[in-house]
């Protein structure tokens, strides 16, 4: 296996390891089907090996991920770019324990998410992973405080603990004063801050963000990026799917996912 380290990512170093996949994957006829990328760190938070994800769409077999090998270290800020339909969201869902691969290994720490039970996946989502969505995905009938509290629901914390964690998370995103506001009473940037607070209140190991600034103007985008960078500086691993090169440029490491295959940029 050819190995591309984080320190020496070049287009030339990415080689095709799986020619056999080319004919099966209509999206990878001209691109390498499998890209192997490893970080040099000894204990990666994520370790993906030969991850394939296929699904049926209109009686057609679609290979969203075509044998991805990938390692992501604790504390990294990684962005994943690529064209629409390139498999970015599918990869993010694998990392977030929302989906299982058709084949391959997706390890989060010592847990292989590909083989884990539904209960284990649920536990991982509840404790290890925080999600931030492009559309914020807040519950419109609940206040900012209550929305953040929803993220703590599965942890079984006491009311006092939950309250203090919510207050702390809202303060961290600068919305302590807007805790009683409904999402409809907040700007897009503020709503995304609430979503980030909901994701970090549980104190996850990794924050997964799917186009977190996609619905925001430039000013709000920068606000959110500064917030995310701040969280990353505090040690939170950050994996962001984005179309926006301005966002990608601020990452430690940039990946491109195209036709089911990933490569460093």
């Amino acid at each position, binding site marked *: 296996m050819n190995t591309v380290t984080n320190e020496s990512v070049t287009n030339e170093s990415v080689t095709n390891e799986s020619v056999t996949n080319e004919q099966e994957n209509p999206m990878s006829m001209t691109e390498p089907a499998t890209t192997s990328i490893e970080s040099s760190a000894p204990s990666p938070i994520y370790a993906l090996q030969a991850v394939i994800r296929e699904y049926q769409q209109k009686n057609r077999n679609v290979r969203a991920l075509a044998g991805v090998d990938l390692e992501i270290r604790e504390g990294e800020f990684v962005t994943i770019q690529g064209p629409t339909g390139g498999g970015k969201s599918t990869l993010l*869902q694998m990392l977030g324990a929302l989906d299982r691969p058709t084949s391959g290994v997706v390890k989060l720490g010592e847990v292989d998410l590909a083989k884990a039970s539904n209960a284990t996946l649920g536990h991982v989502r509840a404790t290890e992973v925080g999600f931030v969505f492009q559309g914020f*995905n807040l*519950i419109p009938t609940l206040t900012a405080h209550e929305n953040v509290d*929803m*993220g703590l629901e599965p942890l079984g914390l006491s009311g006092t603990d939950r309250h203090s964690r919510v207050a702390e998370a809202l303060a961290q995103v600068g919305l302590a004063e807007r805790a009683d506001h409904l999402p409809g009473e907040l700007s897009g940037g503020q709503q995304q801050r609430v979503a980030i607070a909901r994701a970090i209140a549980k104190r996850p190991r990794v924050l997964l963000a799917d186009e977190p600034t996609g619905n925001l103007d430039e000013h709000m985008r920068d606000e959110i990026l500064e917030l995310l960078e701040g969280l990353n500086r505090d040690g939170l691993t950050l994996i962001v799917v984005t179309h926006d090169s301005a966002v990608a440029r601020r990452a430690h490491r940039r990946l491109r996912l195209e036709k089911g295959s990933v490569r460093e940029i």
Partner: protein
Amino acid sequence: MYWTYLRRELAGRKKQTIIVAVGLAVAIALVIVVNALSAGVRDAQAQALESVYGVGTDLTVTGAAAEPGEGGGQRFEFDSEAGETTDGTTSVSQSRLTADFMRGTLDASTVESVASLDGVAAASGALSLTNITFSGEMPDRSQMQQGGPGESGEPPAGGPDGAGGSAFDLDSFTVLGIDPDDTAVGPLSAVEVSEGRALAAGDAGELVAVVDASYATTNEISVGDTIDVGGSEVEVVGLIASTSSDADTAANVYIPLDVAQSLAGLDDVVSTVYVQATSANQIDAVQAEIEDSVAGATVSSQSDLASTVSSSLASASSLITNLGTWLSILVLAVALALAVLFTISGVTRRTREFGTLKAIGWSNGRVVGQVAGESVIQGLIGGAIGLAVGLAGIWIINLISPTISSTAASTGQAGPGQGGGPMGGGFGGMAQQAADVVLHAPITLWVVAAAVGIAIAGGLIAGAFGGWRAARLSPAEALRSVG
């Protein structure tokens, strides 16, 4: 957080919550009202039957219907000396006590033979009769005999109109001959003495009577008065009324059985034997036994008797049983279908929300619990509204207290309260007991429990469908579905 989320969601989807709750409320209110009315009609039927057959009567035995020409049908005959003549007008009055038209009778020994059967706790005989009084005025017949019409050339004279005409009245009332020593079973078991006294064992053979209180009021009869029964002066010793305030008693006048037989010229016969079984599960066996041992008799059980209650009471019963029940079921089904559809549609609309909740770690069970909880609360809101509306409906029904006429036919006695007028009761109400019964809709704990049960069940059914839908939701697909 569970309740906060639940409350906010229901408040945030007011239209859906209101539609589901109102749908269930209408269904529950209908079920409550229909059930209460049904119980009211059953009570009314029981009242109607009790007034005819008394309390505790399990079976009645009646003779086969008489052939035309048999039974009853006595003639009024006046000889030349009958009546009193004053000013050219002769006044005549005659009473006859007759068996009901077409009413068959049983030998009086039937009472003893039925009482001696296994499974029979008590038996009592009664003779159902009608007293008809023919009274009128006609021209002096002695004048008419002196010269026929046209012979003297004089126009007819005399009579109530002074021109030779006549005027007659027919007055009737129902009479029931009963064994004064045995009133535990039969019509007098469901009456109470409102004035004077009841018939007692010592009254056998005596010309004494007790009179239905409402009949007495209508005809201005008091205790101590005498009434003409079959041409004999009978002393009124008491007034009786039904223990049910809404029904009359079985007959207008009650006299000792032997006196009734004597006055009617029907020795040693009864028209009905009232039978009480030793236990409810003996009734069928006793019925079969009597049918075997008493040839030609008709043996009727309470259910047979219930079928004889006709008129608007029967119509009400039929309406409630058929239309009411089916309408309740239909509305309940529609309400449940609405609740299920709205819940499923709500889950579909909230795909992104539930996908997000699963993405942030909510278990399937927690999401299903949320959906089911919302549905159950919607059901309970509907149940509370339905209960309030249903109870209000019952309150209105009881406030209006609709009167329903009932007629117990076939095996019963002549109608009380129908006498007094020409051709009333004894003919028109032949072998029937007509009474107006006030319809009450009782509120029972069972009805309230059923309403709450339906509300919870409705919510659970809708929640089960919605929860099943939510549980099947893959978080990845749910999030993918929103782009």
